[in-house]
């Protein structure tokens, strides 16, 4: 079994276990304010890190290329309160355009 399959099965099992655990244990065990606070920051840091890695790196090298333009357009679209599909499509279109130009 390759790592893609391990990823699919492992992630599914782990996430379901967390969901079921949450439904089954009393709230007091994990409702400490600091735990909640850390948990609030977890999605922000991990998603931001993924944005950085996927936009500015290729394997172990740092690079600025067509994807940077795409991300810039996405930021602009979000700042203008564009809906999600517009954000993604405008980022893809601008990035693809630069990719074909260069």
């Amino acid at each position, binding site marked *: 079994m390759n790592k*893609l*399959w*391990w*990823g*699919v099965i*492992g*992630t*599914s099992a*782990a*996430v*379901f276990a*967390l*969901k*079921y*655990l*949450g*439904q*089954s*244990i009393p*709230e007091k065990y*994990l409702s400490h*304010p600091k735990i909640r*606070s*850390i*948990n609030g*920051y*977890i*999605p*922000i*840091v*991990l*998603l*931001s*890190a*993924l*944005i*950085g*890695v*996927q*936009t500015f790196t290729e*394997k*172990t*090298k740092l690079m600025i290329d*067509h*994807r940077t333009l*795409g991300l810039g357009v*996405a*930021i602009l679209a979000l700042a203008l309160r564009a809906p*999600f*599909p517009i*954000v*993604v499509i405008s*980022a*893809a*279109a*601008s*990035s*693809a*355009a630069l*990719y074909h130009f260069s």
Partner: protein
Amino acid sequence: MIPVVSATFTRQTFRDSMSVSFTVGMYGAAFGAASVAAGFSVLQTSLLSLLTFSGASQFAVIGVIGAGGSAFSGIATATLLGIRNGLYGMRMAPILKVRGLKRIVASHITIDESTGVALSQEPRGDHAMQAGFWFTGFGVFIFWNLFTLAGAFGAQAMGNPAAWGLDAAVPAAFLGLVWPRLLTISDRAIALAAVALAIALTPISPAGLPVIATAGLAILMGLNRKSVTDDE
């Protein structure tokens, strides 16, 4: 599975649930396309949406493994993002009061949206909260999986991801997920710090590690914050 509730508040609850379900389901197309672009098959992509059924965790595992990370770092990143589903479960359990098979089903559909709609129905009472949870959970499940399949087949037909801008669509989709969470200055600062840390670690550490390492930032910030509401 859906509890019997009186029709008066159910219609409005149902409408709230469906509008959320359809909108969120569209993110599934972005996930399907991103997953195939990251090297996963259409089958693997669909199984992730069916079995993991938690958007951020799914995007994380395909993002980390697709960038060359190990299965372990992919699963670890996805699991950290899945912790909040457990917290939602703890919030929902006393309202749902389900056991056995129903609890298994409820657990699977305990996501941002089902919990969010359920909590938004609080003024209408417990029955409306239960209805909102089940309607939204099943609604998102159906649309998320249908759109995943559409996105996966679409990306498969396209070929080279960069030629269609898919390699930029993925970080743009992540940005769309994180943007609504950046409410305060400190939220934005920590987001930028996470981007910088992950990029800085990339040339000097194995793929996948730079993303997980940023969880340390969340722990540092969380421990140093005086109370949950002090900057909101």
